[in-house]
């Protein structure tokens, strides 16, 4: 009887309410359900990855990344600074044989890898870092970026050295290949197991940071302009377009994005520079805040350690140094010297983190979106005490948008477009990284590839429908899990890279490796 009553009331309610409102309510509850299920399913994994070092509140994973980057920097005697000029010359094509024209150039490999990393991490991620960790997070972010250049160098050299070149002329490379082949070559056990572990995490990372986080933030950006509507709608539209590209092979969409994205990147940095020029008298103050915050925290939650954790965490998420994803992208380059791609790849964290992320952070700080307690000079926390209070209560991409908007009123619209396009190009890149890990596990073949591509598209919808908290946690956790395996293996394989480095630099010095005259 009660059941009938319920149905009756539901019917009355449906008639009383306008149809669109009803549809929206159902949709919102669907979003909420997706969100809850997702948070429940991934909670344990997230907790493990972000577990603090006993006795501290410092997540072990952040320490892991920084120690890795520092070890590589020392082991290769600051390769990122010594070979910086040479890296630029390689990208310019000074050392490229004209007979190899038509193959993948150093520039193209770098641009492809960058299009996978430049994106929301630089816009939303930095806002999260600065919003929680304060301006001081920027300092640690830059430091992490500079150190991360050595991690990138190590993994991308190995990516090219141990790639698979198939008889049909295609290539596959990445950590799963260098781990298994490299360990075999050195006579170390367990290479295959570690490669499988990496591949599993890479698939999760592709679905998380490379997909759900992107879809989620793209939706947040769209609703800023259009007003609130259910996330799954954005998700389905995105999924359909990505499906068209990766399954339908509609290259024109990808081609348009690949051309527009670099333009958007330049526009973004250009706009940041404009904001800085307009407020030039505050640049000194902003750097003052960055340095002061780096060592005191300026009142942020967790003090300077909070700033440090946020800075390192967001830098790693943005430039992916040590994660291993770039090694997949860089491995297609045409070169007889794997180390040259290592040199080129070390420019990536520099462009991504040291330049673009710093620009975002400076704009947020200078636009004074973060509220300062005038009495103490410290930042005021929000009611929950988890982040710095902002003028309109913004966080993530909305904070960056508000910061740019305060100086250039129409820029939030351009930023929205940029976010959507960056999100899209990052998804396309990660769909490839995930696919390579998938085919490593399950073998190459049209059907296995299609299965992954469909799963990838389904996760776009889930990502757009879930709320930011669980998505960002899972995304970080999955990507960092890749770094756990990758950096562990890099410690064993770095001597291979050093041998390459010594041989190459000796030949460069002796003049055996010459520039080509074009």
């Amino acid at each position, binding site marked *: 009887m009660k059941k009938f009553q319920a149905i009756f009331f539901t019917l009355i309610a449906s008639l009383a309410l306008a149809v669109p409102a009803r549809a929206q309510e159902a949709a919102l509850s669907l979003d909420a359900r997706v969100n809850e299920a997702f948070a429940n399913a991934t909670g344990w994994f997230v907790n493990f990855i972000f577990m603090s070092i006993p006795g501290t509140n410092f997540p072990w994973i952040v320490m892991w990344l920084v120690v890795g980057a520092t070890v590589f920097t020392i082991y290769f005697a600051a390769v990122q600074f010594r070979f910086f000029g040479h890296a630029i010359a390689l990208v310019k094509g000074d050392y490229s044989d004209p007979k190899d024209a*038509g193959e993948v150039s150093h520039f193209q490999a770098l641009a492809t890898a960058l299009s996978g990393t430049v994106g929301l991490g630089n816009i939303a991620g930095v806002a999260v870092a600065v919003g929680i960790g304060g301006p001081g997070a920027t300092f640690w972010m830059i430091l992490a970026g500079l150190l991360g250049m050595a991690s990138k160098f190590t993994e991308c050299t190995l990516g090219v050295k141990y790639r698979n070149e198939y008889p049909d*002329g295609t290539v596959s490379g990445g950590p799963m290949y260098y781990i298994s082949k490299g360990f075999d070559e050195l006579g170390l056990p367990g290479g295959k197991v570690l490669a499988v572990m990496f591949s599993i995490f890479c698939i999760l990372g592709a679905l998380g940071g490379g997909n759900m986080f992107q879809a989620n933030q793209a939706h947040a950006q769209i609703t800023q302009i259009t007003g609130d509507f259910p996330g799954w709608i954005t998700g389905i539209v995105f999924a359909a377009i990505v499906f068209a590209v990766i399954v339908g092979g509609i290259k024109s969409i*990808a081609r348009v994005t690949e051309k527009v994205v670099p333009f958007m990147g330049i526009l973004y940095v250009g706009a940041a520079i404009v904001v800085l020029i307009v407020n030039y008298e505050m640049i000194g103050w902003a750097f003052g805040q960055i340095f002061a915050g780096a060592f005191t925290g300026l009142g942020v939650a967790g003090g300077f350690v909070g700033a440090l954790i946020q800075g390192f965490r967001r830098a790693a998420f943005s430039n992916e140094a040590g994660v291993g994803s770039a090694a997949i992208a860089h491995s297609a380059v045409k070169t007889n010297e794997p180390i040259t791609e290592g040199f080129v790849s070390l420019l990536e964290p520099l462009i991504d983190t040291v330049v673009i992320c710093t620009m975002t952070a400076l704009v947020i700080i200078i636009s004074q979106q973060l509220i300062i307690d005038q009495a103490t000079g410290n930042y005021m926390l929000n009611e929950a005490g988890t982040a710095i209070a902002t003028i309109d209560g913004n966080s993530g991409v909305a904070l960056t948008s508000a910061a740019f908007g305060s100086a250039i009123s129409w820029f939030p619209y351009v930023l929205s477009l940029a976010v959507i396009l960056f999100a899209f190009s990052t998804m396309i*890149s990660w769909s490839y990284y995930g696919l390579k890990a998938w085919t490593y596990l399950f073998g190459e073949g049209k059907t296995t590839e299609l299965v992954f591509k469909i799963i990838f598209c389904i996760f776009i919808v889930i990502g757009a429908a879930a709320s930011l908290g669980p998505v960002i946690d899972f995304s970080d956790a999955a990507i960092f899990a890749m770094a756990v395996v990758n950096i562990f293996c890099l410690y064993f394989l770095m001597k291979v890279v050093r041998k390459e480095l010594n041989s190459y630099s000796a030949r460069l010095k002796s003049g055996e490796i010459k520039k080509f005259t074009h």
Partner: protein
Amino acid sequence: MKLVIGLDGRSSGEKALAFAKNLAKKADDCELIVVYVIEWSPFSFQTAAENAERHKRREEEIAIARERVVDPAVADLKAAGLNARAIVRHGDVADTIDSIAHSEDASQIVVARSSDGGLTSRIFGSSTANLVMNARVPVTVVA
């Protein structure tokens, strides 16, 4: 004497070929190098999936260019009793033809009048115009 003939895969290229053939017949000892350049830039943007297939695509592009453009031209020249060979390269059309002619120590480049049109050639100039302006080897443009 060594002549470089730049072909563009269009009918206008045949005029250049015919012109070079006549010229070569008049000379005592003449080598003809038929060049076809596939427009390509090392500074373009591609997806990771495209990069992974790039080597394969490049081979395919070269094979098609040989089959459809340069091989028939070389066969034609050889049939006329001339000494001819072919080069297919990727790159900027004007730069590449010039650098091949320069490195081969050719005495002349023969190309067809530009058949390009549209906005791009208005802004950046046609490949033929760029070649004429920048070449280090004398250029004959066949109308």
